[in-house]
């Protein structure tokens, strides 16, 4: 099965996000008053896996090891089947 994963890496709430704060103040100057802005990363990965469980396991490993730094970041992902195996 071919899956597409949409991975969202976000700063942990305790980590300051000066870039988010700068964007918030720019929005304020544009007269958009928002409560908070936090900037994260979005990663798309396409991978082969037997089933959703295997795909999730692989993705958790890649996120834990490389895509996110657990000291400062959290992550979550969404999985979608993009290609059924040819029978």
């Amino acid at each position: 099965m071919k899956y597409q994963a949409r991975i969202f890496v976000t700063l942990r709430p305790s980590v300051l996000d000066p870039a988010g704060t700068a964007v918030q103040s720019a929005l304020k100057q544009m007269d958009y008053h928002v409560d908070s802005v936090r900037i994260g990363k979005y990663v798309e990965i396409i991978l082969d896996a037997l089933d959703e469980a295997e795909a999730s396991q692989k993705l958790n490993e890649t996120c834990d090891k490389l895509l996110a730094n657990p000291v400062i970041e959290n992550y979550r992902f969404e999985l979608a089947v993009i290609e059924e195996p040819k029978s």
Partner: protein
Amino acid sequence: MKFGILVFPGSNCDRDVASVTSGILKQPTRLIWHTDTDISDCDVIVVPGGFSYGDYLRCGAIARFAPVMRSLQEHATKGKYILGICNGFQILTESGLLQGALVRNRDLHFICDRAPLRVERDDLAFTQKYQKQQVITLPIAHGEGCYFADADILKELEDNNQVVFRYCDAIGNINDEANPNGSLENIAGICNKQGNVIGMMPHPERAAESILGGTDGKALFEGLVESLLVNA
């Protein structure tokens, strides 16, 4: 005794370090390409500053998986010395050799300046030529130098006396005004529990000869040479 200096694609302070260890201190020094895996001939490994792998994803995140890094872990386990400077500090935190992380500077600017630092320990090989509480001035040059760790890790660092350098004012006061990048507890450099691995954002190698405007960094390298000679 031999210094080894890791070189990743994008490292740019490797030769600066070599000019201190080889040029000024006349110690055997070799540059180690990131694909090399035998570093057993080296007593001190310096992980230099720069922008390894373009700082893609996070600073140091990709360098951490370079082939040489497994050997670096072994080097640390053996109790041999490792000095991470700037991007090298980021690589050491990403690889778990040091705790915490370096994130975007508080005020978003890339800072290129000279920063006064208070030396918090003088009992390490790296700092034995300084005095505790001495104020030294070293260049800093980073965009992601804001030290972050959660409360538990911070407490552990303080309890174990692992903070080696803090940003301070000209007379050694630690406060927000003297904190260039928002680092928690004004932390500029830390070591591991054993004291053989140290990471710091300031650049001692850029302050080792007076023609460069300062020599406060030279003593760090001299301390290393001295302790290796004693133990040889």
